[in-house]
């Protein structure tokens, strides 16, 4: 094995082979996070179910029963929960990769390993949480379905893995941007939770995309890459909603743009970030 250490490597050079070499570390990081989080908690992994579940209940009461925002005829609970679990996944991946450099300075300034491993691990850690939430969602979904709610699960369900993948890549892409920018501007750490919250209301989670009718606003809504993920997944389960194929294309374009630019930016910043931290 030969390592060449040289100044000013090309900005587009990402050593994927090296990342593959370190896959055992990736696996262990995922395991570590999953086990360490639950140690010394009474409810353990249940916490990752309780959060979206309570959010769904709150949404159902406030936006469904009090504000009476339409849900395209889908049972309120299913409508909010389908949006919430995807949003939780996106937010989890985003937060994890956003904190990957600043949050691990003590390790990263002492030892080298491909730094991309940390944000990548976020995808899988949160995938485990998503799996839990998804199981719970399925239980509720079938309960409502057999109780006779007017839902029409359809062939779009086969594309669900693609939507989940997109959701993760999007969280990763935005997270990489944030983590790189946080090196220079610490303000972002405080702004991020706020931005994420605003962003959620800009995504059709507590309201259906169909209530936005003005073309300009509609374009803006679909410019948000999360819109397509939420609308399409909801449509797959219920047959309702207004999935726009062009919107999904736009969403993928945005996702890839953010992801690729995020990868390069992160790669550039991580090389000397310990000097400025």
């Amino acid at each position, binding site marked *: *094995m*030969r*390592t060449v250490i040289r100044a000013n490597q090309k900005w587009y050079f990402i050593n994927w082979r090296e990342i593959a070499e370190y896959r055992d570390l990736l696996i262990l990081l995922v395991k570590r996070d999953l086990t360490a989080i639950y140690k010394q908690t009474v409810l353990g992994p249940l916490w990752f179910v309780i959060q979206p579940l309570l959010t769904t209940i709150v949404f159902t009461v406030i936006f469904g029963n009090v504000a009476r925002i339409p849900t395209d005829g889908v049972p309120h609970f299913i409508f909010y929960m389908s949006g919430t679990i995807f949003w939780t996944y996106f937010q989890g991946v985003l937060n994890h990769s956003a904190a990957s450099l600043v949050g691990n300075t003590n390790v990263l300034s*002492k030892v080298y390993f491909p730094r991309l491993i940390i944000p990548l691990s976020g995808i899988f850690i949160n995938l485990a949480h998503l799996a839990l939430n998804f199981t719970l969602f399925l239980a509720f979904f079938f309960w409502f379905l057999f109780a006779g709610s007017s839902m029409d699960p359809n062939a779009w369900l086969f594309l669900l893995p693609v939507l989940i993948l997109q959701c993760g890549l999007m969280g990763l892409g935005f997270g990489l941007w944030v983590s790189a920018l946080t090196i*220079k501007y610490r303000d972002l750490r405080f702004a991020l939770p706020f931005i994420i919250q605003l962003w959620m209301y800009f995504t059709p989670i507590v309201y259906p995309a169909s209530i936005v009718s003005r073309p300009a606003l509609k374009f803006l809504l679909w410019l948000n890459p999360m819109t397509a993920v939420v609308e399409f997944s909801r449509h797959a389960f219920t047959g309702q909603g207004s999935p726009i194929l062009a919107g999904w294309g736009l969403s993928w374009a945005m996702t890839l743009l953010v992801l690729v630019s995020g990868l390069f930016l992160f790669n550039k910043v991580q090389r000397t970030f310990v*000097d400025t931290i």
Partner: protein
Amino acid sequence: MSEPAISIRNLSKCYRLGTIGRHTLVDEAQYWWHKIRGKDPREHFAKVGHGATDRRRVEAEKEGNPEFWALKDVSFDVQPGEVIGIIGRNGAGKSTLLKILTRITEPTSGEAVIDGRVASLLEVGTGFHPELTGRENVFMNGTILGMKSREIAAKFDEVVAFSEMEKFIDTPVKRYSSGMYVRLAFAVAAHLDPEILLIDEVLAVGDASFQKKCIGKMGDVAKGGRTILFVSHNMAAVENLCSRAVWLENGGIRMIGDSAPVVDQYLGVLQGAGKTVALQDRADRQGSGRARILDFYITDMEGRRKAVLSPGKKYCFHLICRIMTADRQLSNVSAAIALHDHKNDMIWLVNSNFTNENQTLAEGNNDIVCHIVDFNVAEGIYSASVSIGQGSIEALDSIYNAAEVDVQGGDYFGTGAKGTPAACKILTRAHWELSR
């Protein structure tokens, strides 16, 4: 001759000073605001810690250089199987060199080619997670250091046996004492089986017997034909373990060669540091001059002169004084010794007035000795100022910057922790508990 294991060519690392300390948008705005108003914005920003390089960094900044070269045009080769020591004073560029070779940061120019699998040990226990058990952490730590899971599994028993931690391997490491923690961490690192091992000062950890074991293990590794690059302040270890040594000074190579002569030369220069003008010939003194300080030096308890001090040790600070008038004696003479850091802040002061231990000077040379029971100053280079007075009224003689005091390594807390010298120069032992 075979290919070198490590080949370093014109390696340089430059830190840009102007950008230090701007971490928020507000800072950024302030920086530009100061610039617009024509002030030097650097004055406004406290420097953030970058370890030992602080001193030279600040000097460079004072001189108005926007850049600071922590490492400049360093070139040397290390042959396979060679054990090479890197020595030099704090801030000479040792850590920067190691950081570049371990790829923690990138050089500004130049290149280094490393042929073989590298493992680095800049600090033991990197990546240990308090909630996980010892077993889980061994795997975690091993993979962070570049091993495959199955390689660790194959060596697991050996690692645990070396650390003598069999009983506690399934206990979360947060319940470990710091000594246990370090044992396990070193055991992982020592069994990594790399072709090239980069080590920074890890031998300053653990109790004496474990340290011995660690040095022994390093010797084994070296005999096994591995290449080791070893950064240390421990000259005895460098002389014993290393065949060659590189002496870094101000970012460049001062000397390179067989370890014994390099270490000798280095120690010689350390002893003579700051002795360009003998203290008794110094003219820049203040005070009435009725008595004078002729010499100032530091010894250990056995009376051996010390050029480098370690935190936590016992020392005697000697002030050699003489009455300059016709008086036969001078009573109630107080003595004070202060240490200033690189920013010229006084960080440490001893004064015989504090404990009512003023002395009466007699004819001839008087040796006023100050016994330091527990030297609690963190790693760094300090400037010592000395003064004598009569009681607290008359200043007899004082010399600012009488000597340079170099504090290195040490194990003040008995855990290998050095405190945070970049932020705080004073070490204090404390006991922690949860009050119920």
